[in-house]
């Protein structure tokens, strides 16, 4: 190839650009590990800790002075909203005001950092970054039960789990030695990605979308780098190549997207107790049967070869019969159902076989799979399934029109489920008597009965099998076409909810052996162990065999019954999304422009060259996680302290918390950022340590009052010559109203609640499909907003109005808008009105006997401070005017104070409905003040 001179110049110029960019990149401050800077030695009584020294140094440079300390009431409200997301009660304010001790403020910090609400407040920030939501997103946007992850985060913050450990658990808790349930639940972090199960999707396409999302999430939340650019090409500004992106990708590309059964603490205890009790009974059997091992071995010998020869059919699906579900052929001849899950469909498979001509029986094995709910083998929310009918037609390859239906004479299975009503979850609006039961229900020609496999809590997610005996041998010499009809009609009415009851992973096989063929009673996990030589079996494997074998020993009936009885006590548990490493890692390729259909070169796990090197050559998620929180990581510690700073002061020391790359503007206080990062790492990555430092600083304690000059000079308060004054996050806007009214329920954790919202939002055409929103009643109505169910496609209106992200993707910086829709929300949304009414009632009950004391009381409940005289007279004016209008008959006081035309209940003695009504007006005004929803 010849290159023209002009072309040469171009190449040279381009190379220069590249090299200078690379140079700039390696010199970029954020790509070099932070080194603890010297604290400026300034002599100033204002300085309480090194934060102040750094801030003051900059202020002096700008010829600015810090603001005086905020008054105590304002400070406590600020401190309280920042630490726990709730305003202080009147009693808390009074206690602080009367505490004249030197460490009064420090005591408040300690009280608040020790509050369990601290985890709710700061966990919520992480949940933004972790794009937590309670539904799948995309069209179906089905609910998912993942609140264990939310509670894990809250608890982790409350116990101040070191941040490095926290990040490790997020990415690889399951790979830690002796991983606890909590550590497994933590991997829900990566699993919070959206899932697209709309009809006709290619599951691999949207698995890859989810993988990109996980990479983006790690980039924003932990690394502070915009790595997703490199999904399609080398990063344009930072020295991250596309290959490096996919090398990081390779660490996290080897997992099942699992959904696991998890237990609450009391349930976990119960599970442990039951396990112990069962083991004790089994130990008893072993103790009184000296030769049990020999007897078990003899039994094993008797059953190892007693099975007919099963030939796997590995049939193909008729596309038209899938109902939109994808049936994916697996290497072992089984079929895995993924993607959209219709609640009723008949899947038709066909298989041509030229060698089998005398089929005596068909077998359907239901198999576990890490991608199925609770490991399967079904696709229902419990991992179970129901086979309504199984029909087979055979035809001759030579004469295809000659089709005969297979008549089955018996159906047997390894677990014969007793007949059971279909759970309400599968209600199909037909009001027919639909049941599941033994395998014969799949060949009884009755569409209301189905073969079911639910063996109860603790045992429902086992592989199962059923065998269907033909009346006479079927098939044709010269080749047979088998057409298999798997009717799966035991799901519910709405395929856009968790109502499917489909097979998850299954394998169909046939035998030509003569004689009565019945399902092998020996469970698959036991038979799998048979394949392992005795001397190489683990104690656990031996125990697994024993647990089955004992059930076959007649004289142990009593012990077996006892254990059976114990199983009935096993808790159902809940579910959580988690990762489970696959036995065989996937190959990871560079993808042309991020297109999963265009794989290029294969890559191995590895980390970008411009960041610190790995300590190990490992390729697991755990290796990757350890690398992320390596002391030498240039961004990890900086990124998290920057986010804490952002939350306190509105803007981070780096204004773009998601991007510390070469395009990010320089930090406002680079030394302070590095000092905080080192301080975090040197103090066992304790976030509470950093909180304590910030909260203690004079910088934080400044008054937020601002002069026009300073405002124009530093509108965003980057120089920190004043304290922060910011509208609180959406959740806290709502929580403040609930707290002020006294309605707030302060329970920590548990399933998400369906806070009151307009019903039409969850029905078409506002929602794609109907979505059940069983509005919370009782105390759950008044839970903190962190517990409000988050449906991605239907953001909760009162939170959305205040810029709460809906979890579609990782968010480390919220907007802070100020809009008319916010005003409409706090003025008119029913829950805010309910709060106004409740605050009124409480004011009459507890606020003294005069309007003067009552107004002060309501004011303090809302704002912490006492009203100034002119504020009080403003409110008194409103009170008098509306009192008069009620007296004149313009307003129905009962309607105003109850929302119904009913007399108010619990009216405090000596008060009137009119008073309750006017205090509802006063309370509503107070809840709508700018100051109420502002940290000041």
């Amino acid at each position, binding site marked *: 190839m010849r290159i023209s001179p002009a072309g040469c110049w171009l190449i040279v110029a381009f190379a220069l650009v590249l090299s200078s960019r690379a140079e700039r990149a390696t010199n970029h401050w954020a790509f070099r590990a932070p080194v603890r800077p010297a604290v400026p030695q300034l002599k100033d009584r204002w300085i309480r800790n090194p934060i102040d020294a750094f801030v003051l140094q900059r202020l002096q440079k700008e010829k600015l002075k810090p603001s005086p300390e905020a008054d105590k009431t304002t400070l406590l409200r600020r401190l309280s909203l920042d630490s726990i997301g709730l305003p202080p009660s009147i009693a808390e304010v009074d206690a602080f005001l009367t505490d004249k001790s030197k460490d009064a403020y420090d005591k408040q910090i300690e009280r608040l950092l020790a509050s369990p609400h601290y985890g709710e407040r700061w966990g919520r920030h992480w949940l933004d970054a972790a794009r937590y939501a309670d539904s799948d997103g*995309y069209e179906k946007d089905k609910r998912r039960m993942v609140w264990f992850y939310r509670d894990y985060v809250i608890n982790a913050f409350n116990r101040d789990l070191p941040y490095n450990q926290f990040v490790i658990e997020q990415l690889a808790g399951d790979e830690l030695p002796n991983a606890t349930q909590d550590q497994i639940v933590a991997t829900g972090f990566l699993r919070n990605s959206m899932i697209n199960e709309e009809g006709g999707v290619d599951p691999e396409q949207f698995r890859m979308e989810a993988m990109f999302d996980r990479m983006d999430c790690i980039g924003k939340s932990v690394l502070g780098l915009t790595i997703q650019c490199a999904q399609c090409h080398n990063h344009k500004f930072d020295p991250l190549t596309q290959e490096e992106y996919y090398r990081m990708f390779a660490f996290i590309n080897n997992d099942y997207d699992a959904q696991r059964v998890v237990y609450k603490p009391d349930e976990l205890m119960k599970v442990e107790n039951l396990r112990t009790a069962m083991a004790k009974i089994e130990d008893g059997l072993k103790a009184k049967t000296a030769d049990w091992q020999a007897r078990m071995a003899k039994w094993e010998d008797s059953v190892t070869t007693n099975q007919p020869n099963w030939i796997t059919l590995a049939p193909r699906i008729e596309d*038209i019969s899938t109902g939109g579900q994808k049936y994916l052929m697996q290497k072992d001849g089984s079929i895995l159902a993924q993607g959209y899950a219709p609640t009723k469909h008949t899947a038709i498979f066909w298989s041509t076989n030229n060698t089998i001509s005398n089929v005596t029986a068909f077998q359907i094995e239901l198999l576990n799979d890490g991608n199925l709910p609770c490991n399967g083998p079904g696709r229902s929310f419990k991992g179970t399934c129901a086979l309504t009918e199984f029909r087979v037609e055979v035809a001759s390859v030579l004469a295809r029109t000659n089709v005969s239906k297979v008549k089955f004479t018996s159906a047997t299975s390894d677990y014969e489920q007793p007949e059971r009503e279909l759970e309400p979850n599968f209600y199909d609006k037909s009001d027919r008597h639909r049941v599941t039961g033994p395998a014969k229900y799949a060949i009884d020609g009755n569409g209301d009965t189905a073969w079911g496999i639910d063996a109860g809590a603790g045992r429902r997610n086992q592989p199962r099998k059923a065998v269907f005996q033909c009346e006479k041998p079927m098939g044709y010499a010269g080749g047979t076409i088998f057409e298999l009809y798997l009717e799966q009609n035991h799901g519910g009415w709405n395929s856009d909810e968790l109502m499917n009851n489909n097979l998850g992973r299954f394998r169909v096989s046939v035998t030509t052996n003569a004689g009565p063929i019945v399902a092998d009673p020996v469970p698959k996990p036991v038979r799998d162990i048979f394949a392992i030589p005795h001397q190489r079996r683990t104690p656990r494997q031996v125990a697994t065999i024993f647990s089955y074998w004992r059930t076959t020993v007649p004289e142990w009936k009593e012990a077996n019954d006892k254990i059976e009885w114990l199983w009935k006590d096993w808790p159902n548990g809940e579910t959580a999304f988690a990762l489970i490493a696959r036995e065989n890692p996937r190959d990871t390729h560079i993808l042309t422009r991020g297109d999963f259909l265009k794989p290029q070169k294969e890559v191995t796990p590895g980390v970008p060259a411009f960041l610190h090197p790995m300590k190990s050559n490992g390729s697991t998620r755990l290796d990757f996680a350890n690398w992320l929180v390596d002391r030498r990581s240039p961004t990890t510690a900086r990124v998290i302290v920057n986010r804490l700073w952002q939350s306190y002061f509105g803007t981070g020391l780096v204004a773009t918390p998601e991007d510390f790359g070469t395009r990010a503007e320089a930090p406002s206080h680079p030394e302070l950022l590095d000092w905080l990062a080192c301080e975090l790492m040197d103090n066992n990555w304790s976030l509470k340590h950093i909180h304590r430092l910030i909260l203690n600083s004079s910088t934080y304690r400044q008054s937020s009052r601002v002069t026009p000059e300073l405002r124009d000079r530093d509108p965003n308060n980057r120089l920190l010559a004043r304290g922060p004054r910011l509208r609180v996050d959406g959740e806290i806007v709502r929580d403040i109203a609930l707290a002020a009214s006294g309605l707030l329920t302060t329970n920590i954790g548990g399933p998400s609640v369906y806070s009151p919202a307009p019903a039409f939002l969850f029905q078409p055409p506002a929602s794609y499909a109907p979505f059940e929103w069983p509005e919370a009643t009782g105390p759950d109505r008044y839970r903190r907003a962190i517990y409000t169910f988050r449906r991605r496609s239907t953001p909760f209106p009162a939170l959305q109005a205040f810029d709460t992200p809906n979890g579609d993707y990782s968010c480390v910086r919220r907007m802070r808008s100020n809009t008319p829709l916010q005003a409409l929300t706090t003025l008119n949304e029913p829950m805010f009105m309910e709060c106004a009414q409740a605050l009124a009632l409480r004011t009459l009950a507890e606020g003294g006997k005069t309007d003067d004391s009552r107004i002060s009381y309501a004011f303090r409940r809302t704002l912490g401070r006492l009203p100034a005289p002119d504020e009080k007279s403003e409110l008194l004016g409103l009170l008098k005017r509306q009192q008069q209008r009620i007296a004149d008959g313009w307003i129905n006081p009962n309607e105003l104070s109850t929302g119904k035309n009913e007399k108010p209940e619990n009216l405090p003695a000596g008060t009137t409905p009119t008073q309750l009504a006017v205090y509802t007006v006063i309370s509503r005004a107070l809840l709508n003040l700018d100051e109420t929803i502002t940290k000041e």
Partner: protein
Amino acid sequence: MTTPEHFFNEQCKAITRRWFFKQCGVGLGTIALGSLLNQKLFAAGKSALINPLAPKAPHFAPKAKRVIYLFMAGAPSHLDLFDYKPQLAKFSGTLPPPELLKGYRAAFINPQSKLLGPKFKFAKYGKAGAELSELLPNLAQVVDDIAIVKSMKTDAFNHAPAQIFLNTGSQQFGRPSIGAWTTYGLGCETSDLPAFVVFSSGPKGTSGGASNWGSGFLPSVYQGVLFHSQGDPILYLSNPKGVDAEMQRDTLDTVRNLNLKHFDITGDPEITTRINSFEMAYRMQTSAPELMDISKESKTTLEMYGAEPGKSSFANNCLLARRLVERGVRFVQLYHEAWDQHGNLVADLKKNCKNTDQACAALIKDLKQRGMLEDTLVIWGGEFGRTPMVQGGDDGRDHHPNAFTMWMAGGGIKPGITLGESDEFGFNASVDPVHVHDLNATILHLLGLEHTKLTYRFQGRDFRLTDVHGELVTKLLA
């Protein structure tokens, strides 16, 4: 470059004193109070003047000042409505040519499915002889006012990603929608109503959900506001029970006075912005119900649309869209999710056209007779097309991204033309293909916005609606 800081300065420049007085002076209790407030607001410095939705000048003189986007969600069959293919009719029942299917993925069907001929009669209409299906008799009457694009193509063939793609130029969630980009670029002529209004009708909701009209990384003030077509159009618009108009006003005045007192102490301009937000909310409480009350429309108008006061329907929404743009709303998007005909193609298309054809045509006629069509851009279309191959027996079509039809009218669109062609089976856009990015670049152009210059800095990168793509479709311009 568009950083928040830059954005802030631009906003300041864009806001005229006249606008400021108009928006901040009206609606307060008394004129005296109004001017008192104005003084305070001015005293609060420039940041107090920020209304991110104040009208802004476009990059160049626009042809369209506002948009009504009729989003036919679910994806209508171009083959049965607009794009008549004699060859498809001829080879109906046979397998498609293998070379057509190379590398082709379908959502539900095996691509090796038989071709299915058009299900309806087609005829030519208007001066230009545009070909339309018999299902669109009303559109036929205004066909000389619209431009039909038969060569649309997109990247996605599942509903949610494809809807998000058409709206945001990306299949991944988190990017701003075209309505959000438009209001970000142009602001809004009214502050009595939201700048970007969305309606949803049809038997289902949209697949993409709220992200279809989301603001992505743009400030959330630019996101679309979903209007309910019955009851309160905007959530929480009505006063709570027991609160009458006078009490609401009295409460707002008290809240404002207390806020002003507090502003005197703190000096935070955010307080004045909040006062303004409450005043705008109060005005919305009056203007939105007035907007929704279509009973004041003439009988002729109601009949033309097929709208009925008190009902919720696509027809009502079309009429409401006209009322919205009349009142200065910048961007109106009507979703009608009904077009996913995997089966029941014939009956459902008949039904859908019965529910929409008249109102779509009425909207064109109505805007025209009011002199508004010339600067109002109307867009009709879905997220992709449908397969020439059959799904199921003989009455359904699968998703198809390679070719589909949209139409546009008004706002600088050349009327009475048909642009582009698909191949003989309606499978691939073959002549003058218009990719989604090209469409979006053209829409922005008509609004006076250069799609490569309308950017927002996020994560160190200047993002655009059209990503790094998009060619202006000049043949569509009048």
